[in-house]
């Protein structure tokens, strides 16, 4: 008799781990399709509508890309921290603070647009980094759990933004009560597109940079060593605390820059309570599912952005928002299970007696 059993893989290559995730998503979609069919809906037409919404027009593809930018920036921030085995749950807050600081520069500094935008980007990155400074120091020097500290600072950031929108930076002339003044500067558009700006380049450049960092530099090697075993990293001569703080600040800076990019898109330009549609949360999911792979983040970020965008279109076609959320959940669960499955392989096990 031939039996099969699961065996833990000794090595995991990038291709297998990507394929199992995709397979997980596809299986989840099949299950969802079956359930939709049982409830009397036509899953094929829903799928076609979704694909049409995304790929059917330039507007659709640009819409996906626009949503992908903030998700990718926060996801890259989380993915980098994950290489240290640090959970930066506060990318939402860092994103908001980045936008907040950029707004401050944008409405108070006059000058050539390009210069103000550069100052805004710097201010956004620095503000994002500062927003994780205390959690980073607390973690490195007193071993305070960063999950709690970074998470809680999200709420502080959200309140600060609300306060600015209602109070000191409120746009007196606006009919909307909760909104700040507008930044008069926007990023340069990309020729041939309606709404995309050069902001779309940032996640690609950053992904490339991080990929190179971990592939070919001593700093990446040291970060991975700290993530694997901090004691061994100290044994190898790495100043673990200093490295921990500097990398965490950098992740805050990435998320902060993401906030600045979001603020400087034409049509955004101001802060209000709805500014961050929980991009940090989506980014967090993407990074966690990508398992520390930078290109995995890139693919996952676009995937989740496309999914959300299709969801909005499907709502306009009469599919209930609850069903759409259930579909999101099912697909992400499929990817997560695919990740677990990628660690195992099926091997043929000889029945015990045969070997004997």
């Amino acid at each position, binding site marked *: 008799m031939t039996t099969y059993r699961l065996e833990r893989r*000794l*090595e995991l290559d990038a291709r297998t781990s990507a394929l199992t995730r995709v397979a997980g998503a596809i299986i989840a979609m099949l299950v969802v399709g079956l359930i939709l069919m049982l409830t009397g809906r036509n899953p094929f037409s829903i799928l076609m509508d979704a694909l049409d919404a995304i790929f059917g027009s330039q507007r659709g593809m640009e819409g996906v890309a626009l949503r992908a930018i903030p998700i990718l920036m926060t996801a890259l921030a989380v993915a980098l921290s994950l290489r240290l085995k640090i959970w930066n749950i506060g990318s939402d807050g860092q994103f908001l603070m980045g936008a907040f600081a950029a707004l401050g520069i944008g409405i108070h500094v006059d000058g050539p647009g390009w210069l103000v935008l550069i100052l805004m980007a710097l201010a956004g990155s620095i503000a994002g980094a500062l927003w994780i400074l205390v959690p980073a120091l607390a973690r490195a020097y007193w071993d305070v759990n960063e999950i709690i500290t970074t998470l809680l600072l999200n709420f502080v950031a959200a309140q600060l933004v609300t306060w600015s929108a209602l109070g000191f930076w409120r746009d007196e002339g606006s009919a909307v009560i909760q909104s700040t003044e507008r930044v008069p500067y926007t990023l340069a558009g990309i020729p041939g597109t309606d709404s995309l700006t050069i902001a779309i380049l940032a996640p690609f450049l950053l992904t490339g940079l991080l990929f190179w960092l971990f*592939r*070919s*530099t*001593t*700093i*990446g*090697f040291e970060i*991975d*060593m700290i993530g*694997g*075993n901090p*004691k*061994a*990293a*100290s*044994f*190898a*001569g790495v100043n673990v605390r200093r490295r921990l703080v500097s990398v965490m600040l950098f992740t805050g800076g990435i998320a902060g820059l993401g906030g600045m990019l979001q603020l400087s898109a034409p049509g955004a330009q101001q802060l209000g309570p709805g500014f961050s549609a929980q991009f940090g949360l989506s980014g967090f999911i993407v990074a966690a599912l990508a398992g520390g792979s930078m290109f995995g983040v890139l693919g996952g970020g676009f995937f989740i952005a496309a999914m959300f965008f299709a969801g909005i279109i499907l709502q306009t076609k009469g599919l209930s928002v609850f069903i759409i959320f259930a579909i999101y959940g099912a697909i992400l669960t499929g990817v997560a299970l695919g990740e677990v499955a990628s660690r195992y392989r099926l091997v043929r096990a*000889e029945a*015990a*007696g045969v*070997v*004997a």
Partner: protein
Amino acid sequence: MRSKAYRASNELRIQVSESESPFAIEARGISKFFGGVAALDGVDFDAAWGEVHALLGENGAGKTTLSNIFSGIYRAEAGEVLVNGELQDFRNPAQAIEGGVGMVHQHFKLVEPMTVAENIHLGWPDTPRVISQRALEERTNALMAEVGLHIDPTAKIWQLSVGEQQRVEILRVLARGARVLILDEPTAVLTAHEARELFTVIRGLVAGGRTVIFISHKLNEVLEVSDRITVLRNGVREITREAKGATAQELARLMTGEERTLEVEHRTVTGDAMLELHDVTARNDRGVVALESVDFTVHAGETFGVAGVSGNGQTELAEVISAMRSVDSGTITVGNTDITNSTVRAITDLGVGHIPEDRIGVGMVGSAPVKDNAVMRNYWTDELSTGITLSRDGVVDFAKRLVEQARVQTRSVYATAGQMSGGNQQRLVARREALIAKQVLIAVHPTRGLDVLAAQEVQTSIIGQRDAGAAVLFVSDDLDEVLLMSDRIAVMYEGKIMGIFDRADADRETIGLMMGGHSPAEVSAT
């Protein structure tokens, strides 16, 4: 009904059934496979009542697998187990204990903040559901009187020495009615003195009619304590014989399949002073003084052994020299360079290699590939790096060379290091550090947990390092090993150097007493 059971269980009784079969435990044709590889292949074994029966073999010979089958952790795929003449098929350790077979593992399963009495009663079905602390202690005292082992039942586990903790483990198993006691490498964690005491305990247990299966790969101990010896090699029984008349050489040959003993030529010191510690004082992680005015010199081409019971400052000693711990006062020099409170990288670049005590926890990144572990102590050097970038090909080449030189068995340099066996991990770390150690090699318990052959390989490479002119600081809590390896020997106790001997003047008994805290004056007085 319930109240009766409650009352009955409040009185302590150890079940002692009358023996019917002459054999306490028997194995007939036991086979066990892991991933198609036979860990045990048709093994026969028997132990009589009142006998100490040693199971001897290298790591991977199958001795732990066999005891795990006896104690219900594994189930055999072929063959049968008889306890007191009755066929048994234990499915878990609880059933084995019920059947009278209990195992004391190498790593204790005690709850440190709780007392001895609490630990013994924890998870014991006979423990009354409601009971006062005092009643628990009384039951424990009664149990200890019955077995003839004594420890303060009110002491917390963390306050006890390792030897005492082991006795609590033994008591815990005996309390549950085990009459066949399996001790898995019980002396691996003990000092020589504690081991001696354990042997007395073991003799007392078998005198009371119990049976002890003693697992070890230390030949001298096995010859000392056991009545009969069974040697396993590669899952097959080589021999079962009386301990009387057996010699260590014969057993070593049966264990390893080849005749080989390491002989080290001891040297008198002639080289220049290479590593000097002057009046060094340092604290441990809890802020307690762990090194107190430590003063010694190691010369080029010399192995300087540090004997002592684990936890007397040896770890901290290695750490201050390799800059992983700062010193409060005193100076450390390598060659002519003052390295007191320098950085790990500067000291490594100076040619100081360090085989750390905890090779998995400190010496490597288990989740990372072998190649990364191979270069973790030299990745910043010009050979592999430009300062910013790291040569991927260079890393792989270096790792392949290291793996080949150290004869590390791994499927590839891309496989994760943590999946290799302990011996392969140790070979990798030892060789990696030896390549660095042009001036000084610090080796802390470098052979701990290794079997005879693997240990000899590591020892040989350390001797090679000495012969190449490095100063070797060799730390071990195995006195025999320190005596084997060292040209001079220092004894450490509570962070102090109690005395330094030339190898020729070193006396085993004297050093043993000094390891226990006796000053040289006291030793010479006795």
